[in-house]
């Protein structure tokens, strides 16, 4: 099965929104990267500094988050991965509270208990998990609950191409199809499972082919093209909202930076080409050529994004550290 193809020209406002979302994400990720490394030198101590721990940033993968989440509303659920910021921002997670959580502060989404891999914003039904492919099963349950209570809300489960080799992925696709749950599975193929290149991990050329094994449509979007993601995701979300069941969408995207910050990426032979493949300047140029954006609006979008990120980080650093005496809070409701 495949989606019907339609290559309608997107409305200018949609294009601008896609671009703006990508810029907001990049602005956030660049700032977090800078804050993360600011006090880890000389040398690199992963547990030191104002943002401790592993940090998985999503620069280059903005087209997936922007293209998919443009079809969602706050009542739709999204589950993301250990690399969650881009999806969170695109789905409308409170950026300030997310920043505060990344900084490990009391004002964070989880009052500093979760950290950057465990972000939960019930206002927009967003969650993420640090365990590969294990964000899919809870998305099934959210979709099940949505259908149970009526309405046409959907759940989107975002995961990476490495996850497509996990049992949880296959169990989830089968169960979602069997019960015709309103789920959209999104695979971000960034070519790398940490240091293992996709051809060394995956037997099929396209994970979208795996959809056939579960009687659902599958589609792969090439070239990290945000508009193609938007169109494909639109078809999948519409199918889920219509009660026709789940779909699988794979996007060939780009991990511009390391698996985590501090990753030397010595295994990677394609680093020299990464900058040229950055999706944001490419899309900006397309919109400029099409007359949808001009230089002034590009600058305004960048300035607005920077200001939003500045406010978020200011909120984060102004928020107090959690009280060590409360370290055992929140285990039980």
């Amino acid at each position, binding site marked *: 099965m495949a989606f019907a193809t339609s290559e309608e020209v997107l409305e200018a406002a949609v294009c601008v929104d896609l671009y703006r979302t990508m810029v907001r994400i990049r602005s956030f990720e660049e700032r977090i990267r800078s804050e993360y490394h600011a006090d880890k030198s000389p040398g690199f101590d992963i547990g030191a500094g104002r943002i401790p721990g592993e940090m998985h940033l999503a620069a280059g993968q903005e087209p997936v988050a922007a293209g998919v989440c443009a079809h969602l509303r706050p009542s739709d659920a999204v589950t993301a991965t250990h690399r969650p910021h881009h999806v969170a921002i695109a789905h409308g997670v409170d950026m300030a509270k997310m920043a505060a959580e990344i900084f490990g502060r009391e004002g964070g989404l989880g009052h500093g208990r979760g950290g950057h891999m465990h972000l939960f914003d019930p206002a927009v039904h967003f969650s993420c998990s640090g365990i590969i492919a294990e964000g899919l099963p*809870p998305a099934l349950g959210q979709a099940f*609950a949505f259908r149970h209570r009526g309405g046409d809300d959907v759940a989107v489960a975002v995961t990476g191409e490495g996850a497509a080799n996990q049992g949880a992925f296959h169990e989830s696709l089968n169960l979602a199809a069997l019960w015709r749950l309103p789920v959209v599975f999104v695979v971000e193929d960034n070519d790398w499972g940490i240091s293992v290149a996709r051809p060394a991990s995956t037997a099929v050329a396209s994970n979208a082919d795996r959809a056939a094994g579960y009687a659902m449509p599958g589609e792969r979007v090439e070239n990290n093209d945000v508009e193609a993601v938007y169109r494909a995701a639109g078809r999948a979300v519409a199918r889920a909202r219509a009660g026709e069941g789940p779909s699988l969408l794979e996007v060939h995207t780009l991990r511009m930076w390391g698996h985590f910050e501090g990753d030397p990426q010595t295994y990677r032979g394609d680093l020299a080409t990464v900058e040229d493949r950055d999706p944001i300047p490419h899309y900006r140029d397309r919109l400029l050529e099409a007359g949808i954006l001009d230089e002034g609006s590009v600058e305004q979008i960048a300035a607005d994004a920077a200001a939003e990120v500045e406010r978020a980080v200011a909120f984060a650093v102004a928020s107090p550290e959690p009280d060590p005496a409360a370290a055992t809070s929140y285990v039980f409701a």
Partner: protein
Amino acid sequence: MTVVDQPTSRSPAVPPRRLTMAKAMVEGIASEMERDPSVFYLGEDVGAYGGIFSSTTGLLERFGPERVRDTPISETAFMGLATGAAVEGLRPIVELMFADFFGVCMDQISNHMAKIHFESGGNVKVPVVVTSAVGGGYSDAAQHSQCLWGTFAHLPGMKVVIPSNPADAKGLMIAAIRDDNPVVYLFHKGAMGLPWMSKTHRALGEVPSEAYETPIGKAVVARSGRDVTVATVSLSVHHALDVADEVAADGIDVEVLDLRTLVPLDREAIVESVSRTGRLVVVDEDYHSYGMSGEVIATVVERDPSLLVAAPVRVAVPDVPIPYARALEQAVLPTPERIRAAIHAVTR
């Protein structure tokens, strides 16, 4: 058998009902499904079969396939589905057919279901009941006979309840469903009163017909005694009661403490009992090391080592997989013979 925490009002004209533990468990589920439309049950063979160990008999007929759902053999997917549904306001009961199968879905249980409330700083509640059959004694061998309550209890974020008798099976089920946290509800196959398995005579017991909660986190004195405390759970409660009756003839007055809940553990009840008896035997059908038996003893020793006038004794599964052959399995289970020997040892 001592049953507490039941409503006291009952018409004297109505004779007491006696149910098996399985039927009492189902009655608890059904009464909550009747009361609360957000409760549903899912798992393997829980529909037309009614649960391999009769945990859902009759529910499909009563509530239909939307609320009593057979799943594929995909424990990771359906365990996670329960978590997601709970996050969105439903109250799932999800059955793991044997606790031994935890290995294929423990990430969803431990890393997701049990941690989300914490990781979210209390902003997301996960009211799931995980039901699972535990225990050996019928030669089902190493992968279908374990208790494993110590494993669930060790990992933070789940309550763990283990009814030993029909009244508690109903009351703890209702309490578990109404609890806003993940609750692991472990029922011993040998205590369910199944017609196709050797069973204790106490698998049949008086059960009030109305809905009631047995409080989670409260142990109960199943038999009062002066000389030694036997702290235990599940089927071993019945073995301990049987042995207590026997050794009474030898002049040993045994107190049997049914812990009923491992998380949260009723440490006060343990200390209170031992402070009266001075002697402690812990009977645990789970593995010996790093588990419930050590935790119970540590509870006493940390509070006041002088409460004990004799070294405590553990009766648990020595740290081996459960063997298949009957003689071998009986050699490692906490049988009445081993419990009796432990009571004699500690009261010598």
